[in-house]
């Protein structure tokens, strides 16, 4: 039965009260006394040498306080990259400096060159227009394959080439994989593109920095998913500000999807400028700036090959991917096409031999980094597409082919050939569930009905695996991470029993303030309303790594459980003293401590009051107060999985794809708040379907971003999306975290693109267009229609 309280209850999102009534406090809502505004003059060309910058006219304009160029940041570090990949020859990746303001060269449209700080935003913008920058245009490096040519122009003159790294995984398997292909009964090959996306959180990025000369300290308010990470990266690597003099606040943040993980130039600029100008400096991104300065997502070009035996068993898998890094390495960019991608290429299957090659390439485009799913959507898409193609080529039902190759429930824990160990899962169960949800066995009748109306109906299936709960610090350290990936929580119990939890996780739409409170309320047995979740301010939260990679409940929630267990342990000691009983006999139930087998008890607030008013208290054995901090470092990733099914209708006259139904059967392990989980899946599906049908960032050959606004970049709207069927009743709890949770934030965006594309290809094939074996996303009407005309 559904619970109305604690873990498993669909408690209403408490944060929505302020969001829906316009009372949210977003970074742009913050204004500081004496605040100034910055306008950035950004490059309009993709690649060029800066010959001269003339700021004289701008400096003389009304309201202008200071005009900044790279020279003002000569002593600052570059924006650091948080992950160092080692290539297949044992060499570390090529890592160019990423200056705060363009230094010597511009390398992508949108790169900031000059910044004007003025009294008002209009004055800053007007002055930025008066700056003359003379740039000698250079040929733009746009095509990844061409970028690797010997004589290709170089994005970075000081690097040996445009190749960031050439990564092989598992390199030792390469020869064995080749032998398996040579022996295979059947080989299916697929060339595909994972389309470049612009993240588009609803709230654009904002940075507001303030310098306190009296204390020589800085405060940065910023739209970040991880304020501590920004404090560390910017303080230690860019501006040389020690942590105790730098406070980073990420208040309410309106969506991130990865794009707000990274440390951006504008944050470092405002922080440094606030000190140099001596007044607070604020920047609010316009939507146009967001398109050309927020890190983009995806942009992989892949050839994938699958070797099968005569029964359709997968023998080996080989992929060859070009991954676009853009002009500079964004904070976690190198991890995305490597460790977040190659390690997932086993999918849900027992493929014994896998070899993944990834060449990461610099181009004159906006940096590319993690976007909802980060590497895992790229892995899932190619794998689930090639399996579908193989099924068609071998005449095996695509669901049946997947089932034949699934890792079976009794095989867990399962060591894949690509390093990771899946702890639990039951892929047959999720597949069974989705088949049931979609009434798959009556598809043919529905197809005939569509055909009678002149429409082509198709059914697409995909099954995904992902690795969440990033990540065991010692493991990622070996893989090149320059950070630990634990999480932290401080549980502060107040005198009257209410609780404030300070978490290192960060909520920017996920509903942590509700779910985290549910967990603590459940553990202690007090109302959820007694618990407040605080996050997003380095001044009061313990060092935390923030929110991304569906890690918050699995890692942050586990830290909170650890801290709460410490609280309960201490509270039991206090209760034992108050009840004159032995600690071992104290039981906590429904917010009451009692002595086992007696009617003697003290309630929660009685214990908390004693902790802070220790008149009757074992002071010689126990400190007063009730506040505990815990850090949790996971021992493994978590592995959510699920079966997704999509049914589409294609209009043969126009090529328009309509999604008739979409079903998601996910295994997230234990679920804290089913309503919030459902909402997370909905959002992920919208983004995945957006990628499949609508979204793509397009550059022309000269590096101009052609999709620079919503006129040309198609975001999904409500009427592009069906009513979803979402189910998470298949639950194989995670075996290594205290809540048994796996994470749900990215699943929808990972599993849905291949389900949609498989459905469209199925519709075309069943409709007699046998020659259409693949189409690259987005499946716009023009692409689908053109494919049907051949």
């Amino acid at each position, binding site marked *: 039965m559904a619970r109305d309280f604690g873990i498993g209850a669909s408690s209403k999102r408490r944060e929505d009260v302020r969001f829906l009534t316009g009372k949210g406090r977003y970074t742009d809502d913050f204004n500081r006394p004496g605040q100034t505004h910055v306008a950035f003059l950004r490059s309009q060309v993709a690649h060029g040498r800066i010959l001269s910058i003339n700021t004289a006219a701008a400096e003389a304009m009304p309201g202008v306080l200071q005009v900044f160029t790279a020279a003002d940041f000569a002593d600052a570090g570059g924006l650091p990259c948080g992950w160092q990949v080692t290539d297949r020859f044992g060499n570390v990746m090529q890592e160019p400096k990423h200056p705060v303001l363009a230094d010597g060269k511009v390398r992508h449209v949108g790169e900031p060159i000059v910044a004007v700080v003025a009294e008002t935003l209009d004055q800053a913008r007007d002055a930025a227009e008066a700056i003359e920058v003379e740039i000698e245009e250079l040929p733009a490096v746009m095509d990844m394959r061409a970028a690797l040519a010997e004589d290709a122009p170089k994005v970075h003159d000081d690097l040996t080439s445009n190749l960031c790294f050439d990564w092989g995984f598992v390199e030792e398997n390469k020869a064995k994989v080749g032998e398996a292909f040579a022996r295979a009964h059947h080989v299916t090959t697929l060339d595909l593109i994972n389309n470049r996306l612009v993240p588009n959180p609803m709230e654009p990025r904002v940075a507001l920095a303030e310098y306190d000369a009296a204390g020589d300290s800085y405060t940065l308010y910023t739209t970040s998913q991880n304020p501590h990470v920004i404090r560390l990266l910017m303080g230690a690597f860019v501006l040389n500000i020690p942590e105790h003099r730098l406070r980073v606040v990420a208040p309410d943040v309106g969506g991130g999807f990865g794009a707000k993980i990274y440390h951006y130039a504008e944050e470092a600029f405002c922080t440094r400028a606030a000190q140099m100008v001596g007044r607070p400096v604020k920047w609010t991104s316009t939507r146009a700036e967001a398109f050309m300065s927020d890190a983009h997502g995806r942009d992989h070009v892949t050839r994938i090959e699958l070797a099968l035996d005569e029964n359709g068993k997968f023998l080996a898998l080989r992929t060859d991917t070009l991954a676009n890094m853009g002009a500079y390495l964004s904070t976690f960019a190198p991890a995305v096409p490597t460790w977040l991608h190659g390690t997932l290429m086993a999918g849900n299957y027992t493929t014994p031999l896998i070899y993944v090659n990834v060449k990461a390439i610099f181009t004159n485009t906006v940096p590319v980094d993690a976007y909802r799913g980060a590497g895992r959507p790229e892995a899932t898409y190619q794998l689930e597409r090639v399996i579908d193609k193989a099924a068609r080529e071998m005449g095996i039902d695509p669901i049946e082919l997947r089932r034949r190759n699934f890792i079976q429930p009794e095989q867990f824990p399962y060591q894949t050939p690509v390093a990771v160990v899946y702890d639990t899962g039951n892929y047959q169960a999720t597949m069974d569930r989705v088949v049931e949800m979609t009434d798959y066995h009556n598809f043919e009748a529905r197809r005939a009905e569509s055909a009678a109306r002149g429409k082509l109906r198709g059914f697409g299936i995909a099954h995904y695996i992902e690795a969440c709960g990033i990540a065991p610090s010692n493991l990622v350290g070996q893989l090149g991470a320059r950070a630990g990936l634990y999480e932290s929580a401080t549980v502060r119990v107040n005198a009257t029993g209410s609780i404030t939890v300070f978490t290192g996780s960060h909520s920017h739409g996920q509903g942590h303030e509700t779910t985290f409170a549910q967990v603590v309320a459940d553990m202690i047995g007090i109302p959820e309303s007694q618990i407040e979740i605080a996050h997003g301010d380095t001044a009061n939260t313990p060092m935390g790594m923030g929110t991304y990679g569906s890690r918050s409940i699995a890692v942050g929630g586990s830290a909170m459980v650890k801290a709460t267990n410490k609280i309960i342990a201490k509270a039991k000691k206090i209760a034992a003293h108050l009840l004159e009983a032995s600690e071992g006999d104290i039981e906590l139930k429904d917010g009451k401590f009692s002595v086992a087998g007696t009617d003697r008890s003290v309630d929660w607030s009685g214990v908390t009051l004693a902790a802070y008013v220790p008149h009757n208290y074992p002071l010689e054995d126990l400190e007063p107060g009730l506040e505990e901090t815990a850090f949790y470092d996971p021992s493994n990733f978590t592995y959510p999985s699920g079966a997704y099914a999509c049914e589409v209708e294609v209009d043969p006259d126009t090529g328009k794809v309509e999604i008739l139904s979409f079903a998601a059967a996910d295994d997230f392990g234990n679920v804290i708040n089913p309503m919030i989980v459902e909402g997370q899946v909905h959002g992920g599906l919208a983004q995945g379907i957006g990628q499949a049908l609508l979204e793509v960032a397009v550059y022309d050959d000269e590096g101009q971003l052609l999709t*620079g606004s919503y006129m*040309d970049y198609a975001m999904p709207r409500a009427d592009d999306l069906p009513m979803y069927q979402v189910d998470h009743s298949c639950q194989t709890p995670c075996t290594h975290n205290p809540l048994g949770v796996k994470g749900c934030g990215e699943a929808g965006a990972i599993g849905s693109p291949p389900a949609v594309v498989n459905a469209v290809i199925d519709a075309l094939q069943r409709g007699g267009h046998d020659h259409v074996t693949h189409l690259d996303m987005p499946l716009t009407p023009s692409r689908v229609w053109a494919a049907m005309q051949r």
Partner: protein
Amino acid sequence: MELAASRLIAADRAAVWAALNDPAVLQAAIPGCSELTGTPEEGFEAVVTQKIGPVKATFRGAVTLSEVVEGESYRIAGEGKGGAAGFAKGGARVRLSDAEGGTQLDYEVEASVGGKLAQLGSRLIDGVARRLADQFFDNLQAQLAPDVAAAEAEAVEVAEAVDEAEAGKETKGWFARLRS
């Protein structure tokens, strides 16, 4: 963006050539041009205000003539910077030849845009370029042979009005019959 077309100008070749080298005539002919100074030999400096889709901007830039064959052909190239709106650059090869009723002018244009213009207006560039080229030659015609130009302009207006009125009808109006 690439565009090639021909126009018949009702003036003799020498007059058309002179017009194409006269800053005053060029200024009057270039749509939105508020300033054009310089000489064919040294190059021109131009200020042009244009609206492309949602972006309106004043472009400042240099225009140069090259590959000049006196009285016959040249290549005109320029780049205009429109501040925050972005930039436009391009060139045209222009060739004159004698024709019945005046001078035939053949041109091939290539143009590209950058910055905000590319982000917001790239889809519109082809249409805008075509419209601007048409306007330029209409204006040039007006300068060289005012009477002919006025008559043509009137005819075009009437034709448009008729086309609207005739939309969907099978029968042709008087002007359409006249043309066929």
